[in-house]
């Protein structure tokens, strides 16, 4: 079976600095992957290129056997199925429910159905009790969980998470970790960039290491 997502020959430069030089990776459907590497090695940048937020200088992206140049425009249909979450997630200054419903609304879903699915996702993330709270008043951990609920409700085929436990510790971190684990086991295809050891340690994840401007499968 061909892989769900492939990146081939990615070349990414920032001015003089070369971040990736003919880097490649493959993601199989239903698997979980963790992208590791030292700070500044380009994990976030790579995820952004895969998500279509940045373009590379050279290379090819292949999703479900459809190709697109990494240097060119990102195919719009991919955005319906590939969801990316920022390292520090941004929640719109409307309401918690609105945030979670946002993607569903873009798909033209009717209000009742959206609301129901959003409520489910918020409950899944343990945020049902925070229903009326303005998003900017949520704690750091709650914001991360809200972002995960917002992504999960869209039933993404490929989920790209950038440091889902960034700046969290203790209770908050544990809660987010729970959700990440749930996402992995619910057979979404997941790629997580992180240096959180508890995530890296998870046995079900295949480790991809960024090294020498390439990506290699690590043990």
């Amino acid at each position, binding site marked *: 079976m061909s892989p769900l997502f492939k990146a081939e020959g990615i070349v990414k430069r920032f001015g003089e600095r070369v971040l990736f030089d003919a880097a490649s990776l493959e993601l199989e459907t239903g698997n979980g992957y963790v992208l590791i590497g030292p700070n500044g090695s380009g994990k976030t940048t790579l995820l952004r290129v895969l*998500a*279509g*937020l940045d373009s590379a200088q050279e290379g090819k992206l292949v999703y479900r056997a459809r190709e697109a140049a990494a240097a060119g425009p990102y195919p*719009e249909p991919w*955005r*319906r199925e590939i*969801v*990316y*979450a*920022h390292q*520090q*997630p*941004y929640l*719109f*200054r*409307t309401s918690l429910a609105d945030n979670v419903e*946002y*993607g569903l609304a*873009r*798909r033209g879903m009717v209000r009742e159905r959206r609301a129901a699915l959003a409520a489910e996702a918020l409950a899944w993330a343990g945020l049902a009790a925070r229903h009326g709270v303005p998003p*900017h008043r949520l704690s750091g951990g709650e914001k991360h969980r809200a972002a995960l609920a*917002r992504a999960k409700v*869209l039933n993404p085929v490929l989920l790209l998470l950038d440091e889902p436990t960034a700046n969290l510790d203790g209770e908050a971190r544990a809660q987010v970790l729970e959700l990440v684990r749930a996402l992995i086991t619910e057979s979404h295809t997941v790629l997580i960039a992180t240096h959180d050891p508890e995530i890296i340690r998870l046995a079900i994840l295949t480790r991809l290491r960024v090294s020498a401007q390439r990506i290699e499968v690590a043990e």
Partner: protein
Amino acid sequence: MDLLEPTRQAFALLFSGDRELWGIIWLSLWVSVAALALLAPLCVPLGFVVARIHFPGRRALVVAMQGFLSFPTVVVGLVLYLVLSRRGPLGAFELLFTPSAILIGYMVIALPILMVFTVAAVQGADSRIYETARCLGARPLRAMGTTLWEVRFAVTAGFVNAFGRVVSEVGCALLVGGNIAGLTRNIPTAIALETSKGEFAYGIALGFVLMVIAVGVNVALAWLQGEGGLE
């Protein structure tokens, strides 16, 4: 000079619903609002584009817009007068001394204000807003709308500022409007006229209304912003 009596008369005029007086107030309001309403669908998206997309000459454009922020309104009036008069290039449209001429003048005056405020608002917006919207499946146009909504207070501040500027300006409105009773006489031009005629009651009444409008709109904005504006 006793000002108490004219002031008392002024309020009597206002509350008696004097038709001419309220006609003047109505003209000021509707032309100002219409100018902004017509500019909004152009300036807001354009401001977004200028803020986010690098094109040749972008910097020059932004600098030029800043430069025009305090452009003397009477000069706008002068140029517009020359253009709209019968001897001018647009004389055939017979727009001089009509409310439309004032409307056009207001649009010229408000344009740089709306552009500068919108560009600043979008540039100050968190870059994650647009990206988050796109990553959740929003088309570029929709993501633009979402971004603008997130910075709505900063954008609205531009409208409030522009409104305050046009509703109280007198140079342009007088030149291209002609201060015609019942047609192009708005609050500032009426104040100028009536005061010079010694009709202080009228001038005071209108001045009071203008003050309430100008201050009130700003207060309303600050109130609406509430916590949203002050992080």
